[in-house]
């Protein structure tokens, strides 16, 4: 039976072609991906009454994407990622309050400020064990929260930063009370940053990050300057988080201490865990899942929805994150390596310093 006569008559592809195709395939967009963004764009027109919550989802999605860059791709566990989110939010908010009302200007400033903070603090995160990393990231976020609380002349302290008024996006689109401009703005920014992130993770730079996550010892042994790569990705992720924070400040025209709170860092981890780390869409899908859950659960038991969030975390961990993400991965064949048959031939690599 020759089901495919063309393939038979064509010369067999050389190994080089196969190699190139296999490598470049990761860079191509799959149908599901295009579909995902098409649906996202369609909601701009079809779900006008949901634009406020969709705006939040886009922002949380971007924030989770930034955590994915360091957690899913570089393997840095952070309990204080809200530091960058909050720093970006306050930067954008304070700028706008003092008359710099152009949203894109604020966005750029927030990205720069957060990147700078990320760059400086990245050196703290390079050293020590997972536990010290946790503590240092947590400490930085708490420290910023404390500063924001005390410097009320600048941040409004516990009352929050009020009196933000934003100019129109690109000088054309005024923010409206239905959140349509806000959503379109957040979605566009998130989309553009997503494209950039997607480029980065399939580049040699992105590949080197994954190798560091998998086995830092070996990564160093193939000549990868591990520390420099981690500094770079931490700075980048900080900038992303800063932009997400700025979007929140600009579209809600309010910043409170809440943006730096511990539960922000914990929530965003949950978002990423729901969606699955390490394939970029986890943050976005997780954001949708998280908001939907929040909606249902807080409708059910308004005050105590945190209980169910906790329960979900516990269950996810007990069932096994890997198994869940692999299932999602199976629906998303192009963006992940297939986890065919889980025969663990490798010994659990002790990736410690020899």
């Amino acid at each position, binding site marked *: 039976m020759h089901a495919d006569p063309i393939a038979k008559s064509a010369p067999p592809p050389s190994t080089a072609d196969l190699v190139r195709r296999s490598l470049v395939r990761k860079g191509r967009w799959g149908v599901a991906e295009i579909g995902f963004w098409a649906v996202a764009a369609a909601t701009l027109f079809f779900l006008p009454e949901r634009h406020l919550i969709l705006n939040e989802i886009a922002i949380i999605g971007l924030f989770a994407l930034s955590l994915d860059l360091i*957690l899913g791709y570089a393997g840095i*566990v952070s*309990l204080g990622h809200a530091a960058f989110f909050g720093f970006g939010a306050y930067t954008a908010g304070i700028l706008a309050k003092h008359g710099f009302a152009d949203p894109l200007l604020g966005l750029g400033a927030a990205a720069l400020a957060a990147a700078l903070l990320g760059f400086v603090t990245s050196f*703290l995160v390079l*050293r*020590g*064990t*997972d*536990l*010290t990393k*946790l*503590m*240092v990231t*947590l*400490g*930085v976020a*708490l*420290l910023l929260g*404390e*500063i924001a*609380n*005390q410097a009320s002349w600048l941040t409004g302290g516990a009352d929050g930063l009020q009196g933000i008024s934003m100019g129109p996006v690109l000088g054309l689109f005024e923010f409206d009370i239905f959140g349509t401009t806000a959503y379109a703005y957040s979605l566009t920014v998130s989309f553009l940053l997503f494209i950039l992130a997607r480029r980065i993770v399939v580049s040699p730079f992105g590949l080197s990050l994954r190798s560091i996550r998998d086995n830092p010892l070996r990564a160093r042994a193939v000549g990868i300057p591990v520390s420099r790569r981690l500094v770079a990705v931490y700075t980048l992720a900080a900038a992303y988080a800063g932009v997400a924070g700025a979007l929140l400040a600009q579209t809600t025209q309010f910043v409170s201490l809440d943006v730096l709170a*511990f*539960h922000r860092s*914990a929530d965003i*981890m*949950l978002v990423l*865990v729901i969606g699955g780390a390490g394939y970029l869409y986890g943050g976005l899908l997780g954001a949708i899942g998280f908001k939907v859950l929040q909606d249902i659960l807080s409708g059910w038991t308004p*005050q*105590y*929805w*945190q*209980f169910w*969030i*906790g*329960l*979900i*975390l*516990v269950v*996810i*961990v*007990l069932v096994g*994150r890997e198994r869940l993400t692999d299932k999602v991965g199976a629906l998303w064949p192009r963006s992940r390596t297939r986890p065919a048959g889980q025969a663990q031939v490798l010994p659990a690599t002790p990736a410690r310093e020899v």
Partner: protein
Amino acid sequence: MLTILFDGIAYGMVLFVLACGLAVTLGLMNFVNLAHGAFAMAGGYVTAVLMNRYGVPFLATLPLAFIVPAIMGLVLERSLYRQLYARSHLDQVLFSIGLVFMAVAAVDYAMGSQQQLIQLPSWLQGRVEVLGIQVGLYRSFIIAICGVLVVALQLILSRTRFGIRLRAAVDDPRVARGLGINVSMIFAATFAVGSGLAGLGGALGAEILGLDPTFPLKFMIYFLIVVTVGGTTSITGPFLASLILGIADVAGKYYVPSLGAFVIYTLMIVVLILRPQGLFARAR
């Protein structure tokens, strides 16, 4: 001045009793248990409920404030925690944060979100003057109890069979297992005792630290500071770290209230950068 020092020591002692269980879990199992504060909260609420609803005297509630969290700890260790020892730190963090959230919401549901007030017996109220220093009676009581506990813990660890086995298991679980020590049972027992101590600390500290459903989140960072700064190789490290933290916090809040927790966090970050293994641990 000396009063502040005294209060700081009392505060530090409570912190140590609260956190020493965590030091052992972390050192022993390399398990990041962010839910440690939930056991402390349980102890605090046991005391509060027994006193306020059933009129049990304060002292009589303390044993229960130890036993109830200890049993909870034992049950959770055997059923859930045990499965996560071999997992990544990320999994442990997610799992224990989940537990914290559940505990916070559940206590809020059952008890309400208000502060729990504990009416101390009259003989523990007030202050007396000793050698020209104003000394709170309750603070003295805490220092006495916690002091006895510290000495007892040190003795148990250094003198008893259990202590020797525990230290062997901390040093190298595989070798300990090879020597026929039932490491799994030691873990469970230690976890239970650690949770119990946390509960006792929660009960004793309720008057000083306050007690409401957000307790585990509010003090999580303090426990972690004690453990990471003190190191997990001995109990002296966390003990000294607790005292420093207690004194620094009380003094900081008294002299420079505007800086608040700023000093503590900065100190912690600096220490962790200079000594990632902890201030009092031997560097490896």
